[in-house]
């Protein structure tokens, strides 16, 4: 069965520090991968998605970037965090181009101080 991992689970970082959040998927090959952000009490906003290694599509201009160095690894980064980057970051996957179902990971709670 497929499993999605995210780490760290929680993170407190000062303004101006760098960020690296990691997401990995097990049990499937060539998944589509997605990064979402959820602000407190709000819905989820799609940040990036990837349909293959090195292929990244950005949805929202922001202080963040994404990379996909391996088939089942998706990384969310920032060079300098802003207070507004605080939130709950969720990685999701779906089965390539044949399935509409997206499955979410456990999330990373980021607090920028």
């Amino acid at each position, binding site marked *: 069965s497929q499993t999605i991992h995210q780490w760290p689970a929680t993170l407190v970082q000062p303004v101006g520090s760098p960020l690296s959040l990691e997401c990995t998927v097990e049990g499937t090959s060539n998944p*589509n991968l*997605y990064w979402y952000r959820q602000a407190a*009490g*709000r*819905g*989820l*906003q*799609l940040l990036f*998605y*990837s*349909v293959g290694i090195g292929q990244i*599509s950005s*949805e929202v201009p922001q202080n963040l970037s994404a990379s996909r160095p391996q088939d089942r690894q998706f990384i969310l980064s920032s060079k300098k965090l802003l207070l507004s980057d605080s939130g709950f970051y*969720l990685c*999701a996957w*779906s089965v390539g*181009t044949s*399935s*509409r*179902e*997206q*499955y*979410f*990971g*456990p*999330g990373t*709670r980021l607090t920028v101080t």
Partner: protein
Amino acid sequence: QQQVKQSPQSLIVQKGGISIINCAYENTAFDYFPWYQQFPGKGPALLIAIRPDVSEKKEGRFTISFNKSAKQFSLHIMDSQPGDSATYFCAASMWVGGGNKLTFGTGTQLKVEL
């Protein structure tokens, strides 16, 4: 217009009652409509989904009703239980560039009371 509007923002239902959450969309390019359930501190879990060529889909106590002409869809939870207390999100999606882009509603906090 990419927005998905969800109501109510919060809902209190007695155990055994019916919970109803409504969503409306504007972009007719959306062609897949999932509902997610989220517990505090956890990632959302896919609950049930529907395509626009179907007017209703039922899975256990959960039913989606879909009105294509009105661009509205709703989630009905029958025989609501305290364990159903969670935040529910509707979403609408379309294929873009090989990716399935989901646009989410703002969520409904459901509380089922004994």
